[in-house]
């Protein structure tokens, strides 16, 4: 069998030092994705540095009304946290829309953000995949495409990012706190994940040895009026066909502020800035919501297999915003 070294880190700095020094080392969080990859041969690290037991499992309230979520907080604990449920419902709903109860008990906050695409070709080592094996080609182009990206894809990769949580955090302007060999830095969620371009093997802007230690959610007027909606191929335990994280602050019928992010449409959680801009100051109606979504989707590229996503995300965006507006009144 492929032998590997397992190291249980005692603090974050040690974990970073261990991984940074060894190009063959990987962080191990809840393992719900990486362990599958070990079995499938998708990932073949020589060393696993277990960071799931680091003291990064607290959810702390910040003075501005925001939250600091430790990287090792389990998905189920975060979804059940009263402040999350009350102040950031999109986050709780996104978590509960993902995976299964068993997986949510195991999966960590940072691990959720850094999980890899479920593109069937990425997970099958007998097929070419630029993300798994750079330069080998993209099997999903011209292959199974139901879950492929419609925004921001490249000729090298049409994969989508699978996380629900990341979509909600992207909408709510969360920031990832990252510890690297040269110290700590803060990366907005909107900039954490990449578009594939010529390097689909890189999901994020993180470098080898960078460890996400926390996610910070800023206090915000819109976050309490946020939600997450997900369309999927079965009622539970399925990745998003498309999903919408939304928050809206209304002055009567007029949109004072809005946050909108989409899942299932791109290589990263897709913050819909164009749609937000179109909606700010507008009267919120089904029509204006659809038009705003359509403006964002003007750049979409589809195939026979993905054409539905454009209509679906447009509809779901309108539906979600109208429901939020209904709840707000």
């Amino acid at each position: 069998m492929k032998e590997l070294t397992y190291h249980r880190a005692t603090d974050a700095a040690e974990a970073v030092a261990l991984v940074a020094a060894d190009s063959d080392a990987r962080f191990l969080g809840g393992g719900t994705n990486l362990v599958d990859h070990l079995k499938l041969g998708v990932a073949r690290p020589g060393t696993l540095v277990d960071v799931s037991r680091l003291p990064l499992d607290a959810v702390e309230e910040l003075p501005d009304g925001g939250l600091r979520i430790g990287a090792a907080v389990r998905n189920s604990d975060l979804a059940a946290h009263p402040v999350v449920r009350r102040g950031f419902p999109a986050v709780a709903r996104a978590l509960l829309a993902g995976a299964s109860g068993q997986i949510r008990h195991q999966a960590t906050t940072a691990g959720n953000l850094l999980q890899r695409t479920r593109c069937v070709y990425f997970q099958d080592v007998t097929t070419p995949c630029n993300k798994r094996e750079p330069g080998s080609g993209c099997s999903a182009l011209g292959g199974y495409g139901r879950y492929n990206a419609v925004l921001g894809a490249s000729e090298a990769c049409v994969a989508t990012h699978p996380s629900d949580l990341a979509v909600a955090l992207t909408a709510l302007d969360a920031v990832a706190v990252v510890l690297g060999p040269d110290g700590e830095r803060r990366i907005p969620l909107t900039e954490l994940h990449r578009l594939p371009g010529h390097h689909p093997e890189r999901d994020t802007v993180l470098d080898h040895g960078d460890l996400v230690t926390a996610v910070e959610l800023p206090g915000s007027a819109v976050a309490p009026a946020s939600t997450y909606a997900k369309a999927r191929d079965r009622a539970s335990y399925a990745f998003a066909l498309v999903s919408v994280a939304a928050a809206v602050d209304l002055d009567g019928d007029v949109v004072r502020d809005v946050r909108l992010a989409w899942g299932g449409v791109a290589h990263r959680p897709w913050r819909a800035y164009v749609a937000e801009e179109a909606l700010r100051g507008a009267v919120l109606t089904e029509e204006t919501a659809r038009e705003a979504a359509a403006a964002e989707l003007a750049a979409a590229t589809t195939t026979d297999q993905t054409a539905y996503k454009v209509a679906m995300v447009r509809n779901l965006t309108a539906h979600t915003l109208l429901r939020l507006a209904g709840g707000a009144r």
Partner: protein
Amino acid sequence: MSADIVTQLVPDVVDARAMGRHLDRQDGVEKVTGAATYAVEHPVEGEVLHAWLVTSTTARGRVLRVDASDALDHPGVLRVLDHESAPRLADTEDRELTVLQDDRIAFRGQIVALVVATSSEAAREGALLVRVHQDEEPAEVVFDEHSATYAPEEVNAGAETDTEVGDPDAAFASAPVVIDATYVTPHEFNSPMEPHAATATWDGALLTLHDSTQAVHAVRTTLAPVLGLAPEQVRVLAPYVGGGFGSKGLPHAPEVAVALAALALPGRPVRLAVTRQQMFALTGYRTATRSRVRLGAEPDGTLLVVRHDASSQTSRIKEFAEQSATAARMMYAAPHRATTHRVAALDVPVPSWMRAPGEMPGMHAQEVALDELAVAAGIDPIDLRERNEPEVDPESGRPFNGRRLVECLRVGADRFGWSGRPAEARARAEGDWWVGTGVASATYPMLFSPGNTARIRSLGEGRYGVDVGAVDLGTGARTVLVQIAADALQVAPDCIDLAIGDTDLPFATVAGGSSGTSSWGSAIAAAAQQFRHDHGSSPDPGLHTTAASGAYADTEGHAMHSFGAVFAEARVHRWTGEVRVSRLHGVYSVGRVINPMTARSQLLGALTMGLSAALHEEGWRDPRTGHVVTQDLATYHVAAHADVRDLQAEWLEEEDHLATPMGSRGIGEIGIVGTSAAIANATFHATGVRVRSLPLTADHFLDA
């Protein structure tokens, strides 16, 4: 036990005392506590080895060279078998079972090498290290309306390929109301929880196979000649099986592979568990089907003509012809009728049995077509079915054994609350959901497998051993056979020690075709009745009788079928098109229900599988490579718990003593028949959008 004298007799009717009542699952405690041992868990003597399959990555071509040097260097790897080094098989006529005998590659995922190691981890790693150089040839892997097809000699279950009565084309051309539509079902995969797996040991004289199978004797009689062994040199055991749904009804290539490994390494038990991904190529599947259905009717819905032209795919190396159009031969009255089956032979894995092969895809097509006819003629779908109820079996001209389809429909309609249903589609919305209801008929033939044999042994103190080589693949067979034996011997169920799942036990046929309980139970009834005849009511310990059941059912005098009606309420999301089945009710006429708990479980399970086929299941075969890329349970969706809402199954009280001495017929498959049609019809009623392909995914209803 010494060779038994086997009496063959037709059993008498068995009076029901335990039958029809609840009895706890006989193996329930073992299963929920984990004490039940499955195929690769059976404790065996000797140092256990582990095998791992290496499979082709091309759909058609040849193996040029298998480079096992790196694999053999890996610690723990003992042997790599390929087409040159594997032991030779004696009979290579069945090319599905011709494993590692030549360099031909007939489909993607075919076994091209086998790694044997001292641990499963080492075997798996060894398999990754084997380099198989393959020469790729152009392959045909796409089954669609353009595929070249041929007429097979016969179709699955020995049915006729084509039938024609009257002048169907002329009748269709002149019919006042017509439906002409093509319905498509996708590749579906059985996906039992326990993968196909086996532990094989060759001691130089006897091959012992702990197998995950629905038929221990069929595995023996199939594999022995392939391996060049006498049947007595193969013992197959399957005390517990974690599901099969037909995919374990016949041995597949992995069983040959593990036997080859055992033969190559005498004295060492070898375990092989097929991976979930490999199951999508090596263990059978339901072929995609295309059904063109033409119905012609009077304005009042009276059918003048039924025409069902079905096609499916098979593998170039072995024919399997799904009998999708056979139900159209007997379901409804019509003076003119035609059915045809055509098959496209492709460079793909071999299709096989999956719960209700034929009836499931065929009745989906027919029952959706009937719904379309109801809409076209402006008739209630239940009235339409009742109007076309035949006096006798349209296919054979024989009377039915007790056709209670209309009762199932009427009882079901009452329970479901059908009356008051809006005639128009898209008439009801609740919140964000369009809501509709649909109905479909179900049917399944009463099948009986001849040759089953059982042995009754007196154990003293009123206890009896009952031996039959049957298999319980999770159905409850182990429990209902105790009930049958108890009633046949006129003792209490706790006086019965039942032994099943071993070829050392008397011959039994497959747990398939919903025939197991009927066939094995008849043999138990025959043996018990003969035992009482031979040894009386107070037999000394050690006395025993073995008997085979002759054909009991009056199949010459009657057309033997079960019937049912399925009702579905579907909700289609107005914004996303997502479909939820909020209610799914089935009512069945299946003869006597021997154990209400296990029977309900079978029917609910099959309804769930039908729901799953309706909404989720689709194996997506990459047209470029012939590879099913949705090859795990994260991407090949089956219904999750959240998809199953109000689910109910009930049955009409009856005893069918034309069918079996127990009064029962089979129940394993009928629950999946018509279910997807009822759901498809409900989605049409909800939205006005008629979807003629499965699964009914959200994108179909997005513009609804």
